[in-house]
């Protein structure tokens, strides 16, 4: 098999403070064209930094422009992105981030607009946001959308707060949210933050929520069921329509974590299935880059009943003019300053316009095809706990077949790095022991998938014949396995001279 991973020249590079030389000047700001202010005349001494430039608390490193560039260039070379290679990180939808979207997001007309400009000066931005809301409503089958939340978890919080507020308006106090055991950690954390108590729902043997469990748990103290569909096992919650009916009939809401929308675009709309609230991760489904940890964007779509509670401001279209609407008496309020992660919206909008309705549907179809291809080809080698029907956009294996060789999911993950492939998500969802959660996404070619499958097969063989290769992996990276325990035991969170 062709192993993509190999080693090549990379550079060691210290922490940037260790490059610092006392007295070196960084980049100077522009010259004064106004008289230089006398600082101590304008600001009383008690407000001023007492320290000198060299010793003060703001003591940034003193490095030259080339050193800064070289420093970060070298750091980047120790990293792995979608452009570097296959990145089947389950639940994360690591698809290609189109370069054209980056160029568009950098257009001066988008980057240079201050959020408090008069809306006269920002009609283009408002139109884009307005239309993006419409597109997302259409894709999810919702009646109203807010673009304000900064990420998926932020969107979850937003949705849950709307539910709380709506219930209050109905004159009800419901304190619980039902969350399946397959759920992402943000679901319970957001529920807690929104003031709810979390009730865990055990998935059925086929990996999906059972009607029975909902029947049982759904009482008058339940504000919402928060599910993920497709769930984190990559399975479509087949009973969702009936489940939603039960929840609704007992006065609850159905919240769908929409992080897995990459499986559904143009195929089904969550709103049509009975979902009342959904948050989307533009940095997953809609191809905005993940940036090594954000920024993302987590719009929320809601059904009509919840729409009055959407955060302010809303975007309004009046004839051909766009404005903000602040006068929304029932709103939950605000979740962030200004209007959301606009530059991320620009990218997602561009993606939707580029794909169009047929392209988006094809995205989901091929994402599903890719996942099923991997699932079927790998299930002879790795245990696949849930295999009753086709999976959606991802597939979850376990490490059951590896245990006899003393090899763990973590070992497989680290060994994949040596093959030049980013590990899948591991040990999540929690319901599968040693979960290996593989999401290929639609932008990966058959050749890339075949390379991955062969690598996984080769690693399975190694696990049997030469398990130390796995235990010692990765060996191709500049550092070998990292001691995470020590990091927590002896915390060093900032650089010390």
């Amino acid at each position: 098999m062709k192993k993509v991973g190999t080693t090549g020249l990379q550079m060691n590079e210290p922490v940037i403070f260790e490059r610092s030389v006392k007295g070196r000047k960084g980049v100077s700001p522009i010259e004064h064209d106004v008289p230089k202010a006398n600082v101590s005349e304008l600001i009383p001494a008690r407000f001023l930094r007492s320290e000198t430039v060299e010793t003060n608390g703001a003591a940034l490193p003193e490095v030259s422009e080339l050193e800064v560039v070289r420093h970060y260039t070298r750091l980047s070379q120790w990293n792995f992105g979608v452009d570097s290679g296959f990145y089947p990180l389950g639940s994360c939808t690591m698809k290609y981030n189109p370069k054209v979207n980056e160029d568009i997001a950098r257009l001066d007309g988008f980057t240079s607009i201050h959020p408090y400009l008069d809306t006269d000066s920002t009609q283009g931005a408002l139109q884009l946001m307005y239309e993006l809301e419409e597109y997302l409503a259409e894709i999810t089958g919702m009646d109203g959308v807010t673009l304000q939340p900064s990420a998926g978890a932020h969107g979850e919080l937003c949705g849950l707060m709307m539910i709380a507020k709506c219930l209050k308006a109905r004159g009800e106090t419901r304190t619980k949210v039902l969350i399946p055991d397959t759920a992402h950690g943000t679901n319970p954390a957001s529920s807690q933050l929104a003031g709810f108590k979390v009730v865990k729902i055990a998935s059925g043997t086929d990996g999906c929520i059972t009607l029975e469990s909902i029947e049982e748990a759904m009482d008058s103290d339940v504000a919402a069921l928060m599910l993920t569909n497709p769930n984190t096992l990559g399975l479509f919650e087949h009973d969702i329509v009936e489940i939603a009916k039960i929840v609704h009939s007992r006065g609850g809401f159905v919240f769908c974590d929409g992080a897995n929308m990459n499986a559904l675009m143009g195929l089904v709309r969550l709103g049509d299935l009975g979902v009342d609230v959904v948050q989307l991760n533009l940095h997953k489904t809609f191809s905005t880059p993940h940036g090594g940890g954000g920024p993302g964007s987590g719009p929320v779509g809601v059904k009509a009943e919840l729409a009055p509670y959407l955060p302010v401001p809303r975007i309004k279209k009046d004839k051909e003019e766009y404005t903000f609407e602040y006068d929304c008496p029932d709103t939950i309020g605000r979740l962030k300053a200004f209007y959301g992660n606009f530059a991320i919206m620009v990218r997602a909008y561009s993606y939707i316009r580029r794909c169009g309705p047929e392209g988006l549907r094809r995205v989901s179809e091929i994402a599903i095809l890719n996942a099923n291809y991997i699932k079927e080809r790998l299930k002879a080698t790795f245990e696949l706990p849930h295999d009753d029907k086709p999976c959606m956009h991802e597939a979850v294996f376990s490490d059951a077949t590896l245990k006899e060789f003393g090899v763990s999911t973590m070992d497989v993950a680290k060994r994949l790095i040596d093959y030049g492939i980013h590990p899948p998500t591991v040990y999540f969802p929690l319901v599968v022991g040693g979960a290996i959660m593989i999401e290929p996404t639609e932008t990966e070619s058959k050749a890339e998938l075949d390379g991955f499958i062969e690598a996984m097969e080769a690693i399975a063989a190694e696990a049997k014949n030469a398990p130390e290769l796995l235990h010692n992996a990765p060996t191709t990276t500049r550092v070998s396995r990292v001691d995470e325990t020590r990091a927590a035991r002896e915390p060093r969170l900032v650089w010390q001279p």
Partner: protein
Amino acid sequence: MPYIPHTETEIEEMLKSAGADSIEELLTCLPAALRVEGRLKLPEGLTEQALKETLAGLAAKNRGSSEQSVFLGAGAYAHYIPSAVDHIISRSEFFTAYTPYQPELSQGTLQAVFEYQSFVARLTGMDVANASLYDGASAVAEAVLMAGRITKRPGVLVSRALHPEYREVTETYLNATPEDIHEIPYCPDSGTTFVDAIETALGESIGSVVIQNPNFFGSIEELARIATVVHANGSLLIVVVNEPVSLGILKSPGEAGADIVVGENQSFGNALNYGGPYLGFMACREKFLRQMPGRLVGETVDTEGRRAFCLTFATREQHIRRERATSNICTNHGLTALAASVHMALLGPSGLVELAELNLSKAAYLRDKLNEIEGVSVAFNSPVFNEFVLFTDAEPDAVLKALGKRGIVGGLSLSRFYPELHGHLLVTATEVNSKADMDAFAVALSSIVEAEAATAGE
């Protein structure tokens, strides 16, 4: 189809391996009756060229800082971003990577975050800082929640001179117990938080006090005095900084006595972008570490003892602790934090001080210049950094409109957030506002106010 590499032949081969005759066969788990009929109602897909033309058309409908002379700040600052910043964050190894869960192939992101944490800690004068939060507003809310966990007291005093949208966000977050937020007024002369009112409002139930510095009016607060008062009550002082460039000359919140420092780091390396993505920061005393929300990167070693970095203290986080996590945050603002780091590294300490002094000088110049105008006066008597409040006799909306006609965005009308401040404008000047533009602003404002006065006199 854009971005999809599959040929028809490949699809057939793959379907065969997947044991299906068609893609439809893979979709049987979807409820047939509820499948989307036909196509979604979305505009037709575009080629890359058409897309770029279309979006350039939308961008052209906006008039940003290159088309108008803009004197807005209020939590979003126009600073010059050195070219190297975008070149670095555009390296795809950074921007197409995920959160660094697999440290061995994420050392670049991890070391960069570690450095960023160090920069923020130094800038704020605190012991530790996290990897980033969404924005300054949500960072305030998170800080208040954190203070509640630490002090086990539910109440919070929030200065009315905190950014109004930050106050709103904090309220939204704390909505579960709304009665716990109390607002502290500002002093009408100085525009700074009324310290005596803090003293009065403090009590057993108050976990924290939130003060922005420089505050929303640009005024510099008596942080040290406030800290003494707050600490005497056993409460925590949360200082909010949303113009971190000011830290080039102002005493760090840490030195002034803050317990938690949060705010907005957009000023470093991040364009205005119509309000986002920016990046919230949070720094605190070491002893509060375990109550901190957000990602943390720590230094450690690999199996050979080489320096390495990884995410740490994950037991605070949602993916481990779930409903008992310190926050629900997952994806944070890594790339904007990287941009901030690069900008700070390029500036270095002397660059930062110079930049701060330059901002101070610009605002001082403009303030003096505008203050000379008949019918216009500076509203508060406290020292400011790069923004200040102006009072005009004339109707502020009319003034702003008239300025707008001359290509000048003269500031933010404060009555929007402070009904009591009708006639007040928040005006900001940074290094991107040239003397010529400031002079033109003064000339225009003077003639507009004069004309308004004439009309009003009629």
